[in-house]
């Protein structure tokens, strides 16, 4: 290649990198401005609200959709927030817990489904949801880097954290879905007639289930449980891990083994899988794993008693 051609190629490549780097930062900082004012919506709004209230709230609930839809923090305390989000698991929740203020006394309720704790292929993918704060929060960045959940280009193109989120941000910015000041993170489920029908039909079908007997806790899960325990111990947090009710759990070994692991780790753990076993009504459920609002109220009240018994007056 002639020298002039080489210079030409380098010039084009350099300019593309330079222009795209600059434009990326303009887009990134502009979107930061907008997204920081978004307080509605599950992926960004709720996270922003959590970051705003985390230092002043007494009780925080973490977990997946089961936590989100099944625990009403207003029934537990006047200073609580439910940070449960659909599809999130231990990596996401542990990272949020690590963001809590040091030394402030707080109660942490963390929902864990034992079945997930034993998944071999869990790699912390749920941490993706925090990528939006990757370039702005050291703790989040460290956790994402640790599990290698970042995009290889993320360090150069910061706007990548807004991939697929732009329209959602704009929609929630321009048309907030609800008044976030009256929102405490709990999203009750009021099953529709169709949902009820689907659930009832599903129950009619008798499915054969083969229960596994050998369980080994996922390494990432195990490490995070240890880290959460350590963090809470050092920073004056009361940690309670629990498993919410399931309509009809036919495999018990995972629950038993998880219970054992919690005992060994000396973590307070309550397994409510069979909470409704002796008093089960279809109206308590949206599906086999998610409680309706009615079921959620009953369950929250039970949880309140347990927490009060084992910790202190809320």
């Amino acid at each position, binding site marked *: 290649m002639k020298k002039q051609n080489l210079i030409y190629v380098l010039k084009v490549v350099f300019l593309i990198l330079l222009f795209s780097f600059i*434009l990326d930062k303009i*887009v990134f900082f502009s979107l930061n401005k907008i997204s920081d004012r978004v307080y509605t919506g599950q992926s960004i709004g709720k996270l922003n609200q959590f970051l705003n209230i985390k230092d002043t709230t007494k009780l925080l609930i973490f977990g997946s959709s089961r936590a989100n839809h099944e625990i009403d923090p207003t029934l537990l305390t006047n200073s609580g927030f439910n940070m449960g989000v659909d599809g999130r698991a231990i990596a996401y929740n542990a990272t949020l817990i690590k963001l809590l203020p040091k030394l402030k006394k707080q109660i942490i309720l963390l929902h864990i489904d034992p079945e997930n704790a034993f998944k071999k292929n869990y790699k912390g993918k749920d941490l993706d949801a925090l990528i939006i704060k990757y370039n702005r929060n050291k703790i989040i960045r460290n956790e994402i880097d640790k599990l290698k959940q970042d995009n290889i280009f993320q360090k150069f193109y910061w706007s990548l954290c807004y991939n*697929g989120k732009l*329209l959602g941000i704009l929609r929630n910015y321009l048309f907030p879905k609800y008044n976030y000041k009256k929102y405490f993170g709990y999203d009750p489920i009021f099953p529709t007639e169709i949902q009820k029908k689907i659930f009832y039909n599903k129950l009619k079908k008798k499915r054969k289930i083969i229960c596994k007997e050998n369980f080994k806790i996922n390494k990432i899960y195990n490490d995070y449980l240890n880290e959460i325990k350590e963090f809470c111990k050092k920073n004056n947090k009361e940690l309670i891990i629990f498993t919410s009710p399931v309509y009809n759990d036919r495999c018990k070994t995972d629950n038993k083994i998880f219970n054992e692991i919690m005992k060994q780790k000396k973590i307070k753990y309550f397994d409510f899988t069979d909470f409704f076993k002796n008093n089960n009504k279809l109206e308590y459920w949206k599906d086999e794993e998610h409680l309706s609002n009615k079921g959620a109220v009953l369950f929250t009240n039970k949880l309140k008693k347990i927490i009060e018994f084992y910790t202190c007056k809320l």
Partner: protein
Amino acid sequence: MLFNSVDFVVFFFIVFILYWLLNNNLKKQNLLLLISSYIFYAWWDWRFLSLIIISSLIDYTAGLKIHNSNNQKERKRWLLVSLIANLGLLSIFKYYNFFADSFTELMSSLGWNPGDITLNIILPVGISFYTFQTLSYTIDIYRKQFKPTNDIISFFTYIAFFPQLVAGPIERASNLLPQIEKKRVFRQDYFNEGILQIFVGFFRKIVIADTLGVYVDTVYSNIEIYNSTTIVLATVFYAFQIYYDFSGYSDIAIGTAKLLGFKFNQNFNLPYFSKSLTEFWRKWHMSLSYWLRDYLYISLGGNRKGIKITYRNLMLTMLLGGLWHGSSWNFIAWGGIHGVVLSVEKYLKSLKIIPIPKKISFLGYFATFLVVLLSWIFFRAQNLHSTVLAIKKIFEFDLSRPFIGDINVVVNSLIVVLIGIGFDYYLYKSNKDLETLGKNYSVQKISMIVTMIIILIILFYSNSNNFIYFQF
């Protein structure tokens, strides 16, 4: 190796540097291309490299034998060797299980059960493409339209050249081989055109096609539960998904080749801006449609043997063209629909009825799109049963609100597809080709345009799927 992977970015960066460093030595440069092409293919499965090598070896020998012989019988024999070897490999790997299954079903319906005679075979990526490419070489030599090469490295490179190895464009030897045998010179206009086309290709693939694919996959994986409007919407999305997926791949392939100093032929030329199906096939997957025309339709007699034979040839070409895409009755039916409509168009044209008034000629765009849309149902559905179900559902005319699911997915899909269509409309109206769009752009302009595309990709890209045409 996928174009839309970090592996490929690193791979191409290394190849690009080494390639131009070896610019003064054509043989070494071609050897580099051959080795890198084999690495590119082996990244997927090194065992199937043997098929490419066998195919290349047979056709290299057959080409020379055909050319050097004055005996017509011997020439024909060597052509048959090439045809049987290449189509034989293709048949075993791609069609054996399909025909075995169909045979079993047919026999079962006649009361005899031959048992399971299928084999556990993996379809080698790109086999349909390189088989057609290598066949064109021996056929052209047999027809005395092309002289074979003596340089084995050049020939092997022609078959395995990585930008077009796994999903085309199916380059003719007459276009690509002379470029491989001649010293390449770095050209700034090629560089501009190539870099722009690569980024447009990435946008088309990972932004438009993959975003649309999310909705399409949801609907088509459970077709029985959706209403008419949902299935129509999913099919419209699929029409654009497959177009942007495959044209995006072709753009990256053509652009990549240009960065190495090669010029491929255009593979897509805004096919949805067609007023007839005949026009559509001049613009859609052009390297395949012209291949089918030149080596199948014309070989069968084309339109030289009377009107009936012409229609037969057209139908056969389209049916086999359908079968080329995959071993399923769906693809044959898809080809059949196109064959029938092309025949009808040919018949209407032969009647020489009064020309359609200009004012309503635009309706041709919609009519063509509707036919193509209907045929895409055959292409996308899992099997004939799902296809029939989808068509039945559409004609139930349940016009209630379509299923939306994740609103972000649908809104994103609509936005990105509108960007894609808008860009295509600009090219169509301004009578420009993407292949040469960047030719005269200044360094600043090309950098700015690529930057804009990068930002759009960053904000809107969807988790990448395999290229649809890899399965063919």
